[in-house]
């Protein structure tokens, strides 16, 4: 959508107010086949060309195919230190809330709002409501931030956070590594929230230090002093407060066509869903799958690939199951290769691909036939999201890997 915004801006004879603060990632419709040169989506090449030309004309840095820093914007942005605590970040993509895990105020916008932001460096906003979800206890063995995100959706609904900026707090969140926090905040938009946020802490500062666009030297020390003051004050009040116990969360699986339609993988489907060919009362474990996908801005980071590889080591994808792994960024791909994860995946029968949004959504080109059942580490299971008539079961990377091996929906533990 960035290219539409830039074109409108040019037509209105307005300039980008500060190109140094604008970045463009080529991620959504890019081909992920190794050795790629563009996109396999019919008509997509014109879109990529328009984006490149508009960015070149405006003086905007593009992270393109072949660039070692290219990736899905919500994976690469934090990784590069483009997202920082206290920063205000907008991007024409609903999963921009991911970057709130760094203590940034980050949210998704449309093309017209992008045009306004590019022209003025500002947006007009109605102040969001405030919600805090305090998650006590620790997640159990084999239970991940993705499972927690799905459990929160199942409990509070797809509109449970509507109009809210949601702070995730509590022992379970404090104990999470930064990549898991990014996964948790990623699905704030599925919750209807404007954004998700996590208070910056020592874990985050250690993770950010030395990243390419993060401040360095004296600027780092000055930034750190400011960032330490960002956390919510003791005694602060919120419009809505929820509590949740991490110990109650099991590996989750989507059974329906809304991300809130998720249950513990060992549970039965609570209702019929004709599109998914799921029967109310029937167990979900054991449903035969046609494909397995690991990747996306939700679960395409190194820790996600490690979790899946741990399940796959020395095992084989079941016959007839097509399995893909698409690293969330080019640098995640390189880091995974450096520790041999690519071999674990390819030995197991997974395709090891280049970075991009890939099968998180289907925009045309090669895809799965209607009626295919996919277990996927992505964020949305809407009708047709992964292709016309394709049925999506969203889950954690470990659950996807375990299911790929079993050939049916399976518990990773």
């Amino acid at each position, binding site marked *: *959508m960035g290219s*539409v915004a830039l*074109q409108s801006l040019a037509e209105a004879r307005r300039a980008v107010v500060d190109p140094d603060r604008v970045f463009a990632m080529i991620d959504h419709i890019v081909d992920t086949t190794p050795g790629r040169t563009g996109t396999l989506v019919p008509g997509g090449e014109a879109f990529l060309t328009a984006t490149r030309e508009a960015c070149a004309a405006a003086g905007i840095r593009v992270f393109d195919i072949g660039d070692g820093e290219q990736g899905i914007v919500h994976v690469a942005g934090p990784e590069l230190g483009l997202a920082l605590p206290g920063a205000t970040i907008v991007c024409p993509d609903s999963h921009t809330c991911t970057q709130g895990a760094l203590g940034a105020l980050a949210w998704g916008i*449309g*093309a017209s709002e992008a045009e306004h932001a590019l022209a003025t460096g500002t947006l007009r906003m109605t102040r969001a409501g405030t919600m805090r979800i305090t998650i006590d206890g620790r997640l159990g063995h084999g239970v991940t931030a993705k499972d927690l995100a799905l459990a929160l959706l199942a409990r509070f609904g*797809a509109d449970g956070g509507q109009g809210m900026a949601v702070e995730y707090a509590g022992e379970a969140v404090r104990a999470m590594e930064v990549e898991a926090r990014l996964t948790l905040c990623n699905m704030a938009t599925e919750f209807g929230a404007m954004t998700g946020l996590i208070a910056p802490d020592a874990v985050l500062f250690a993770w950010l230090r030395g990243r390419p666009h993060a401040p360095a030297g004296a600027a780092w020390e000055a930034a750190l002093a400011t960032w330490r003051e960002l956390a919510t004050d003791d005694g602060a009040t919120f419009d809505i407060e929820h509590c949740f116990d991490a110990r109650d969360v099991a590996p989750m699986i989507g059974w329906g066509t809304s991300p809130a339609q998720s249950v513990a993988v060992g549970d039965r489907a609570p209702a019929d869903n004709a599109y998914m060919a799921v029967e109310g009362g029937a167990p979900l474990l054991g449903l035969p799958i046609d494909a397995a996908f690991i990747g996306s801005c939700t679960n395409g980071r190194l820790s996600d690939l490690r979790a899946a590889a741990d399940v796959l080591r020395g095992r084989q994808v079941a016959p007839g199951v097509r399995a893909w792994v698409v690293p969330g960024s080019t640098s995640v791909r390189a880091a995974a290769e450096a520790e041999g994860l690519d071999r674990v995946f390819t030995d197991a029968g997974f395709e090891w691909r280049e970075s991009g949004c890939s099968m998180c959504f289907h*925009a045309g080109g090669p895809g799965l036939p209607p009626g295919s059942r996919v277990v996927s580490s992505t964020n949305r299971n809407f009708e047709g999201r992964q292709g016309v008539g394709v049925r999506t079961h969203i889950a954690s990377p470990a659950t996807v890997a375990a299911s790929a091996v079993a050939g049916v929906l399976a518990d990773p533990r």
Partner: protein
Amino acid sequence: MQPFHTLTGTAVPFGAENVDTDAIIPARFLKTVTRAGLGAHAFATLREDPANIFDAPQNRGAPILIAGDNFGCGSSREHAPWALADMGFRVVIAPSFADIFAGNAFKNGILLVALPQEQIDRLMEVAADQPLTVDLENQVVTTPYQDRFAFAVDPFRKDCLLNGSDEIALTEALGQDIAAFETRLASARPWVGGAAARVAA
């Protein structure tokens, strides 16, 4: 933006809940680099059924859509309001709307009217064979049966819709305040996006 004052017309009693933007306009139609022409593909999956509500003769070109809770959830694609506008919709009435969709709809001159479910139910019933009137100035939806349902609207958005304002121009008029903020930001947080360099230049 095309101004909006009062509109009387056919309302499509759709009523579905949690309608996501993938349903409004599937991703395979998003490669467009312009805003026009998406109406033909709006609700593409649903409209594969020849008996779908949108292609019923009485609903073609209707300016009002009535939907269920959480309308417009999911992807931030502005193609969703572009597609709705291209179909002819200027108003969507529902119990609630997803935030990003609401912003996008407003930018494209589509008025979103949030009403309680029981009032939606009543409007769905009336819309089966009668037009509805949506009056932005007085913030009220009325029917030929004397129903009168008041709705809330953000004052800034109301003003923009009534006047067909160019929002970017309104913000540009605040240029001095924005510049002052940038100067403060550059000294308080010089590491943010090269703020110091920008102000120095």
